[in-house]
C-alpha cells in the first residue's frame, strides 16, 4: 500500500500521540514532497509512532540534514492617516505613506526523510525548527529512534551548530575539535588565510640595498 496524503498522516499522528502539534508545510516544486513540522516536546514520540506504525512502518531514516534560515526583514508601504501641522499653525488630517518593517527571526531547521524498507514506500519528510539561531538552537535528537541519524546529526551540529539533546555522542565530525564557527551557516565568513608570502631577504640578493652593484 502507498502512503496517504500528508494531511491524513497529520491527523493520524495527532490521534496517536496525544498533545502533538503537527503542521503540514507545502512544497511548491513539482516533486510535491510535502513535509510535517513537529513540535519539540513530542518529536521523539511522533518519530517512534511513525517507525512502529503497523501500516506505514517507516523503519528507515534515509537523510537527515540541517538548513539555515536567516533573519528575514520584510518592508511594506502602508498608508496611515496622520494629523499634520501646516506652517501657519492649522492642523489637518492627511494620508501619509510609511514604510513598516517587520522582522522575522531566523531559525535552524532539521529535516528528516523517512522511507520504509519493509513496505517500500516513502518519503515522509519531517522538520523541526529551533527557537532562534543563537542559544536556542537546540532540538531533540532522533538518533535513539533511527541510528542512521547518528553521524548526520553530528554533522548538522558540526556545520550548523544545532545541539541535539539526547544524542549519544555529539562531537564535531568533519571539522576538527578546536574549530569555533559553523561553516554551513549562511552568514559564515571564511577566514582570510591568504597572507602574502614575502620571501626572506638575504644580503646580496637582487633588489636589496646591500647588493653590490658593479
Amino acid at each position, binding site marked *: 500500500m502507498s502512503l496517504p496524503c500528508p494531511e491524513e498522516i497529520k491527523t493520524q499522528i495527532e490521534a496517536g500521540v496525544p498533545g502533538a502539534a503537527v503542521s503540514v508545510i507545502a*512544497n511548491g*516544486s513539482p*516533486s510535491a514532497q510535502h513535509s510535517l513540522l513537529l513540535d519539540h516536546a513530542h518529536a521523539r514520540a511522533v518519530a517512534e509512532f511513525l517507525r512502529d506504525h503497523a501500516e506505514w512502518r517507516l523503519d528507515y531514516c534515509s537523510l537527515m540534514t540541517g*538548513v539555515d534560515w536567516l533573519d528575514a526583514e520584510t518592508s511594506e508601504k502602508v498608508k496611515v492617516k496622520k494629523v499634520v501641522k501646516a506652517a501657519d499653525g492649522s492642523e489637518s488630517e492627511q494620508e501619509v505613506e510609511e514604510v513598516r518593517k517587520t522582522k522575522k527571526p531566523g531559525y535552524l531547521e532539521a*529535516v528528516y526523510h523517512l522511507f520504509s524498507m519493509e513496505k517500500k514506500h516513502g518519503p515522509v519528510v519531517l522538520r523541526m525548527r529551533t527557537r532562534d539561531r543563537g542559544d536556542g538552537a537546540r532540538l531533540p535528537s532522533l538518533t535513539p529512534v533511527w*541510528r542512521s541519524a547518528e553521524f548526520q546529526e553530528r554533522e548538522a551540529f558540526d556545520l550548523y551548530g544545532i545541539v541535539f539533546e539526547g544524542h549519544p555522542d555529539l562531537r564535531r565530525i568533519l571539522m576538527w575539535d578546536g574549530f569555533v564557527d559553523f561553516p554551513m551557516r549562511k552568514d559564515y565568513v571564511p577566514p582570510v588565510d591568504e597572507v602574502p608570502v614575502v620571501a626572506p631577504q638575504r644580503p646580496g640578493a637582487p633588489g636589496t640595498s646591500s647588493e653590490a652593484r658593479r
Partner: protein
Amino acid sequence: MRDAVADLAVFEPEEGEIMEVSMGPHHPSTHGVFRMDVKLEGERVVRLKPVFGYLHRNHEKIAEHGAYLSAIPYTDRLDYLCSMTNNWGYVLAVEKLAGIAVPERAEYIRVIVAELTRFQNHAGLVGFLLQDMGASGTPLMYAFREREKVLDLFESLSGARMMCNYMRFGGVRVDCSAAWLAEVRTLVGRLPQFVDEFENLLRVNEILMARTQGVGVLPRALAINAGVTGPMLRASGVNYDIRKVDHYGIYDRFHFRVPMGEHGDVYDRYMMRLLEMRETVKILEQALRDIPAGPVMDPKVRLRGLRPKAGEAYGRIESPKGELGFFLISDGTGNPYRYRVRPPSMINLTILEDMCLGENIADAVIILGSVDIVLGEVDR
C-alpha cells in the same frame, strides 16, 4: 601439546591491559585518509571510533554558491571511482525539483554508463578486499584489467576516464556513437567470463572462507535501523534495491534479480558484489539490445541559468555503494539555497564499531574493506 593449546584458549589478559591504537590516517588498509581509534584487549577490539574529515572541503557550501549546472563536475569528485552515478544522482534531484523530462535514448545511455560504473566499482572493491586479506596483487590486477577497459570506454565517450562530468539535467552531454556501442557490446560479451574467472580465483579458498565467514556480522534489524544501504544491506538479508523500489529512470524495463545474503558477514558482502556484477551484465545486455535512436537532451532545458520554482526535492539512486541522494531547496534563484548529499559511504560507517567489537584487530581491516568506502564521499 593438547594442554598447551587449551591453555592458550583460556588466556585472558589481566585487567587494565587495554592498548589504544590509532590506525590511520595513513594506514594502507584504510583506503585513503581515514582513522580508526581502536582500543584493544589483547588482539580483541573493545572500542572503535571512526575519525574522518581529512578531505573535507565543504562540497555542499561550494555547490550552494554556484549555479545548478556548476555543481555537476563537483559531484564527480565525491565518490571518485563512480563519477557517472554521482552525476545521475544529482541530475535526478534537479529534474525532480524543476520537473524536467529526459529523452528515451539518454535514459538508456544513463543505464549503460551507470551499470558499467557499478561493474568496475564492484570489481575494484573485491580486488581491494582480497588485497586487504593478504592476497597481494593478483586479484587486484585482475580487477583493474577489466576496470581499465571500462574507463577507456568512458574516456572515448566523455573525454575523461574518472571525472566524466557527463550527465546534464534533461539528458546527457553528448550522444554516443554506434562504434562506441559496438565496443561496449564487445566488452559486455566478455564480462561473464571475467566474473567466472574472478569468482573461481578465490571463492572457495579455504583461507578466505576462514577469514571472512562469521566475521563482522551485521544483523538485519540493526542494518535497517542504521540506514545501511547497498550491497551491505542486502548481504544482511534485506530486499531493498532502489532500482527496484523507485524504478527511477527506466529500471522497470529490465529483468534482473536482487541478490541477497543470509548471514551478513564479510563473506556475504564479498559474494554480494560478485553476484551483483552478474546481474549488472544482464541489465547491460538488455539496455544495449533495446537502445533507441533519438535526441539525448531535452532542447527546452535551460542548462545555464536554470531557476527552478521555490520548493525542494529529494532524489536518490542506487549507487554502487548504496543509496546516493541529493536534497535540494530552491528559493527561486539561480543557485540552490540548500544542497545536501546523502553519502552512502559515510552512513554505512555508522555501524563499523558494532561490526568490529569482539573481533580481532586484523579483522577490523577486512570489515572496513567490505564496507566499501571512498573518502572523497565520506568527507565531502
